[in-house]
């Protein structure tokens, strides 16, 4: 099992959700975060105060998948989030020790693999 973490542009979040859905990856959570990945800093002015915005809004996807779904999930994240500009984000895949579905108590692969697809 793997935990796939994708940090993407907020305006691409919907495209990522669509791509994950098409890849039949079910069960996803996302959170709004701020981050910086080397893109040009944005300059804003409020009356006399000029500031460089060092952090951009990002959306962080977390998808727990069985091993066979790892690659489809990564590809879906890439495909949905890419614009080609600096700041498209990153994907991290980390090993997952345990997963439990709270409703049924099922654990491990049974808890993360898409429910009805296999």
């Amino acid at each position, binding site marked *: 099992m793997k935990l796939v973490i994708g940090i993407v542009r907020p*305006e691409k979040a919907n495209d990522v959700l669509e791509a994950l859905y098409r890849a039949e990856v079910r069960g996803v959570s996302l959170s709004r975060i701020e981050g910086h990945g080397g893109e040009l800093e944005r*300059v804003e002015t409020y009356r006399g105060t000029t500031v460089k915005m060092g952090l951009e809004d990002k959306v962080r996807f977390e998808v727990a998948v069985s091993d066979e779904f790892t690659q489809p999930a990564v590809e879906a994240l890439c495909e949905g989030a890419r614009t080609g500009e600096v700041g498209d984000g990153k994907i991290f895949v980390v090993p997952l020790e345990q997963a439990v579905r709270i409703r049924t108590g099922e654990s491990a692969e049974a808890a993360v693999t898409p429910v009805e697809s296999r």
Partner: protein
Amino acid sequence: MSPAIDTGDTAWMLASTALVLLMTIGLGIFYAGLIRAKSTLNTFMMCVSAMAIGGISWALLGYSLAFDGEGAILGGLGHVALSGVGFEPRGEGTIPHLVFMAFQGTFCMITVALVSGAVVERMRFGAWMVFATLWSLLVYAVLAHWAFGGGWLAAQGTLDFAGGIPVEMGSGFAALAAALVVGARKDYGRQALLPHNAVYVLLGAGILWFGWFGFNGGSGLGVNDAGVLAFVNTLLTPAAALLTWFVLDLIRGRKVTAIGAATAIIVGCVLITPAGGFISPGWAIALGFLGALPCYAMIVWRPRTRVDETLDVLAAHGVAGFTGILVLGLVAQAGWNGVADGLFYGDAGQFWSQALAAAVTPAYAFIATFILLKLVGAVMPLRASEHDEAVGMDVVYHGEEAYPSGEGAILVTPESERELLVADPG
């Protein structure tokens, strides 16, 4: 002060002018709440820029085109740059000409601002400013002349108390043309594009309703029966429209919605705008109940089309203004207004005068706006790039955010600012 001036009339018209001015800010709040957070400021700024443009273009040229002379199609140039507009009243008026000009100027501002609702979240700010300036002169001033300034519609007997022709039908059908020329937002029809702050929407609608007491109540151009009737009707029609909207919302979705209520307030105010000083309070209530129906139908239907007329200016202003103009031709009562009877009270001719305005105004507003925007579009791009649209109009055109978190913001000192601006002009 000239002996013809009535101080009571003048005092009320000064207050009315300020009330109408506030409406454009109310509209900005209303519009800003209806769009996504990343274009809040740009949407509001389109309304604020309409105050700048409407104020100056009006004083320099628009007022003269609308209110100088009795030309059938267009006024003269006698009042260009406010020449001849002073303390003496205009014609038979009882208020200083200057006050009349200022009151009408606030109408120009709000009408230009209304049109922006069709193109928010994707039109370039510079192109908007150019379009808005030309529109205030070539569409608003022309329609204002037809309805108020002694142009052909007024001359052949069309009644329009406070602007159903130039303000409501003018903006509504111009908005449809603008939405067609500029095109839909890139995410329209693909993603749910939701209002980001429903409280702003209600607050803005409330300010609009408040300001509308000056808009309609001041359109008697003094303290008189017509003005008082319009003032009271401005209380009644929106209240009735609200109740209708509640019932329609209940039937359609089993819940009474807040954004629906805000829309109903505006629809009600628009419905009574042309009819305010001409129909009885009883008919004003009926107008609110029944007139809300076509507007509601339009608002439900429009998002199913490919036309991204984003903030439904056509439904809330165009259709409601059209309805108000026509109903006025049915239920006007000389017993209340001292001027004319409608079809129900024996004068079918009045109804046909109203129907003529309801046919010609939308056609002129739509065609003139369509051509004007095509011409502006030939000279400069109308739309923001897809990238800019994704980032949001606030950062792209104003370099500000409505809701900055402040985290990760690095203060730029005056010395480093110069280098920064040279390095990154955007």
